């Protein structure tokens, strides 16, 4: 069966580093026939290293530019490609290309659809504090992230998972999912039909909101508006993305790489008040109704643990991290 699977010729629509694991696996199995890169790289991923590896392995690659789907279709025909896999591709695949795969075009999505459709499901699931997720493989239709699900694997989101760690785990599982699906395709020799998308967990039933790409505004920490749990989730969600999580400390913006909600009373101090600086408790500040330990911060002077940051820059308990009002002309 494995020998027959090798006869499958697969095209991968690769939108980010998420596809690298899959590409490597398919290359090893000698099933990879073509890689399609996006014409508009909204994630600003650098595919040059991947392109070099493909060249070395003599695997052709092309860029899907607007209005040039016929070029891709020609490649598919010339290379006898029958199956396509889409992995975080930022462009809508034209209907004519969807039809061009005899055994179907399938998309890997890092969420249990219909929950979290869109380009950044991992970010939003972590940010929303979800504890359960999954990786699905579904038929590509003209409406994005809507086709029948042909395979899925449940994934537990660890309380300390970051976007990067969950991304890597999902990429690894996604590769396994695709491998199993390809074997099924070889066996059936017909496209996988799959099942209509249904909601999995009641907790996710509210999560059909589009998982758009995070913007910088999403990753700004506002101690006066956000509680400690939410801030910790934002840090984990932003960790490993190209949108840094930032917090303003004494009029200077620094990157907050890690923070944890802690069980320490705020004593009704205003958000932004430094509650504790000491070992082993750490650098604890008041957020909205709760306390937050700032654990890893990065600025132009380097990357610091929370306590080291407080000590180095002279931030003590009792200080206010928000913009100081002392003698600022306000009239």
């Amino acid at each position: 069966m494995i020998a027959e699977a090798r006869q499958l010729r697969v095209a991968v629509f690769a939108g980010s580093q998420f596809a690298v694991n899959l590409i490597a696996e398919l290359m090893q199995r000698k099933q990879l026939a073509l890689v399609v890169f996006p014409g508009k790289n909204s994630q600003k991923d650098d595919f040059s290293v991947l392109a070099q590896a493909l060249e070395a392995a003599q695997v052709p690659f092309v860029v899907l530019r607007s209005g040039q789907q016929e070029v891709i279709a020609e490649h598919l025909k010339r290379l006898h490609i029958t199956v396509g896999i889409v992995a975080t591709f930022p462009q809508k695949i034209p209907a004519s290309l969807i039809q061009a795969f005899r055994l179907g075009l399938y998309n890997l999505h890092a969420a249990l659809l219909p929950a979290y459709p869109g380009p950044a499901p991992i970010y939003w699931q972590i940010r929303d504090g979800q504890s359960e997720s999954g990786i699905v493989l579904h038929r590509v239709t003209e409406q994005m992230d809507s086709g029948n699900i042909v395979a899925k694997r449940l994934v537990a989101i660890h309380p300390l998972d970051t976007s990067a760690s969950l991304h890597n785990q999902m990429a690894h599982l996604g590769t396994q999912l695709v491998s199993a699906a390809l074997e099924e395709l070889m066996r059936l020799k017909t496209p996988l039909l799959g099942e209509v998308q249904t909601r999995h967990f009641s907790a996710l039933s509210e999560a059909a909101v589009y998982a758009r790409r995070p913007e910088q505004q999403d990753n700004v920490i506002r101690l006066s508006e956000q509680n400690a749990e939410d801030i910790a989730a934002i840090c984990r969600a932003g960790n490993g993305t190209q949108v840094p999580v930032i917090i303003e400390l004494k009029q200077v913006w620094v990157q907050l790489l890690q923070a944890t909600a802690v069980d320490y009373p705020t004593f009704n101090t205003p958000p932004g008040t430094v509650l504790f600086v000491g070992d082993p408790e750490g650098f604890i500040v008041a957020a909205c109704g709760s306390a937050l330990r700032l654990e890893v911060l990065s600025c132009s002077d380097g990357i610091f643990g929370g306590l080291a940051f407080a000590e180095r820059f002279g931030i003590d308990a009792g200080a206010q991290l928000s913009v100081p009002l002392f003698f600022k002309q306000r009239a």
Partner: protein
Amino acid sequence: MRSEFNPLSDPICDFSDSEAWPGFAESLYDRGRFTEILRQSVTSAVLYERHRMSLAALDAVETLLQPEFNRDQVAPALEILYQQLADLYHQADIPKRLRTRQFICASGLIMSPDHCITTIRDARRMHAFVRGIDQGLRILREKFEGPLHIVYPACGPFAPLLLPLLSFYQQSGSYSANDLKITLIDVQEGATQSLWQVIKALEVQEFIADVMCMDALEYRSDQVVHMVVIEAMQHGFSREGHFLLARHFAQLLDGQGLMIPEEISVRAVLNDPQEELVTQWQECNGQGESDQLKQRIRGKRKELGEILKMDVAFLRSVAPAAGRDQSLMVACGQVTVPVLTPSEGSPILMLITTVNTYGGEWLHDYDSGITHPLPDAQVCINFIPKDAQPGDLWVNSGDCLRFYYNFTGLPGFFAVRENLADSSAKVSRELAHDC
């Protein structure tokens, strides 16, 4: 006197003959004796250091007890004592994590021991408190038989308001350990570790009943408390837990006992922020403020009135109430924003603390770090701020401001606009609506 000693060639000398090295006697090659000699020399060094610190304390307190404050005498004497205490502190092997921890608790900000060691350099504060304590003890000595029990909570790593004074008493013979028994309390373990070192260095162990590492609000005493010494505040009577501590210890204090400071007054004033916060310091030229400058700046202020007067009687009567968010607070004084001329523009509201330690000993504004005016830039008088912030209070001439003191977290005052005319009109409208 021999200027150099060569252990290989110089003859063995008798202890009593040696001038160059008083520790040496008999054979240099007797290891047991040599060890003993080294011990004596080290002990001598320790004794020498203690003696030096006691002398520095004696010297400093002698200048502090002078009726007239003379900064040129007091400051250098305190600086010498501070340097010795600081050296002792840094050599005391107190773990860094105990020296640097600083946090907010239910009663207020707990300063790190590292940040507290410089209190002793605040010359005016030391003068007022040491003289106040000294005078208070004389009064108590007449009232009570037997040892006087003094409690000093939140005393910090040096207990600066009391330990040098004890050393002075011991050396001058003014009081003995039979006369005074001191309980020192601090919640910081780093502070209490330091205190034991200072007590030993000043050789005042016999005066000390106990050094307790605990939250002073938990302290209970089965002995009569004759005097309580507290100083746990920052400017504007803010941030630290003085109010709650004083209230707690007022309940423990004997009916005829004394609290030092006897009275704390906080009043609200208005002034041009540029003048108060910038110009006057530029004119000082870094030399410290002269009495002339102080008088001039006081003359430019508009006094709104006293918002808090705190003494033992008040402390025994006050019962903080919980606000809607469970923070503890107490209503304080009310002031009216005066009519201002166009030239007076938009002044800044400031809170000024005055401390009467005891008798005629006072700390007025700018005398000490704890009596520097505290500006409140969020009370916007006769203007709407360009950058509105949560917590801003817009008030106009004629408005009444009621001050409240919040005890929890970072203690301090906050103002509420309280216009009786508006309040009654609002009630009337609501009643009309209900009808």
